[in-house]
Structures are given as C-alpha cells and as structure tokens.
C-alpha cells in the first residue's frame, strides 16, 4: 500500500513564527502536492512538485513556499505564520497519471 506520512497531526504556532510541515511518501512517486482544507471551501491546491527541486504554484500560493530536495519528501513552509493560515493541511503524492494518495493531514492553529 502507498503510504504518505505527515509529520504532525496537530500543531499550534504563534503569529509570525516560521512553520515547517513535512510530508514523506514511500512509493517513489514523481508528483507531490500540498492542499489546505477549510469548511465549505473544499481542498485548494497550494503548491505541487513534479520532480526533485521542481515546483509550481497552485491556486493559493501566497504566504507559502515549498522545498523538495529529495524525491520522497515535500515540505511546506509558512515564512511568517498568520491567523488566516489556521487550517487543515493535506499532502498527497501520485505517479504519472491522476490518482493521488493522501496523508492523514496536519491541523494547524496559528494563535
């Protein structure tokens, strides 16, 4: 089975902190994705990566950056966390094609 692991289930941070959300997949997938999920808004794509060191902006990249130094790991970075970034963050990976496999999510609260 494909396994996508997000390092934290719950995080509480303060406004202005730098926050790292980590995601690791164990299936040698080419593509990795970061979404945020908010009630009534569904999933919105923040960034995705189709290869090591390659990244593309999704629909809502403002306030976020990403890093993919190794194929299996995709990090989401909040340079200076703000209260409007309180959300559920979901990581996913896929091989060539469309089926995406998701991690369990990280619920981030920014106080």
């Amino acid at each position, binding site marked *: 089975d494909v396994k*996508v692991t997000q390092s934290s289930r719950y995080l509480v941070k303060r406004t202005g902190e730098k926050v790292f959300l980590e995601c690791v997949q164990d299936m040698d997938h080419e*593509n990795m*994705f970061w979404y945020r999920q908010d009630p*009534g*808004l*569904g*999933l*919105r*794509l923040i960034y*995705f990566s*189709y290869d090591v060191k390659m990244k593309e902006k*999704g629909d809502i990249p403002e306030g976020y950056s990403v890093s993919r130094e190794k194929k299996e790991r995709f990090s989401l970075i909040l340079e200076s966390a703000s209260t409007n970034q309180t959300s559920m963050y*979901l990581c*996913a990976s*896929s091989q060539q094609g*469309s*089926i*995406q*496999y*998701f*991690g*369990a*999510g990280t619920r981030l609260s920014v106080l």
Partner: protein
Amino acid sequence: AQSVTQLDSQVPVFEEAPVELRCNYSSSVSVYLFWYVQYPNQGLQLLLKYLSGSTLVESINGFEAEFNKSQTSFHLRKPSVHISDTAEYFCAVNSGGSNYKLTFGKGTLLTVNP
C-alpha cells in the same frame, strides 16, 4: 479551466435508505473523474475513479458512479447506506495530459442516521 460543482453541501439520510451525491464538472477536454471519501479526522481515500472504458464504475463497499458526458456529471450512488458511510465525499476532475492537478468540489457531508 476545469471546475467541479457538488450541488449539496449536506445530505442527511436514514440507515438503509438509498442516496445520491451529485457532481457536475466543466472541462473543455477529456477528463478523468474521481470520488474521494474523508472519514472524521482522517485524510482522503480514493473511493472510485473513471479513467476510460465503462461509464459505470463501482467501489468495493457498494458505491457506484456513472460518467455522463452529455450532462457532464459523475453522480455517486448507493442503494442502501450504513451508519459507517457517514463521511465527507469529494468529487474531483483531472483533464489529463501533463497537468497532474486535481480540481476538487467543495464536498458533500453525508450523515447516516439510525
């Protein structure tokens, strides 16, 4: 650009009743279609997919969805629901090619009551 509309944000039903969760999409090219399910406090799991071939696709737990190109729909159905089907359901579309991105609907919360 592609988009997905899930017409119902919440669907309450009684156990053993039939259910239909509606999904419409817009895309100018051929599509791949998906239903994902999210149980409380969990990530998304793939429920079923349409990539090509038969327009009726089924999951292992009794759900089915039918791709209707003329109506640009991919509605999810189950003839008899269980309490354990309570979850949020997301429809998603991908236009294939080199675009790996999925566009998700806003989700439908299915609540099955005893």
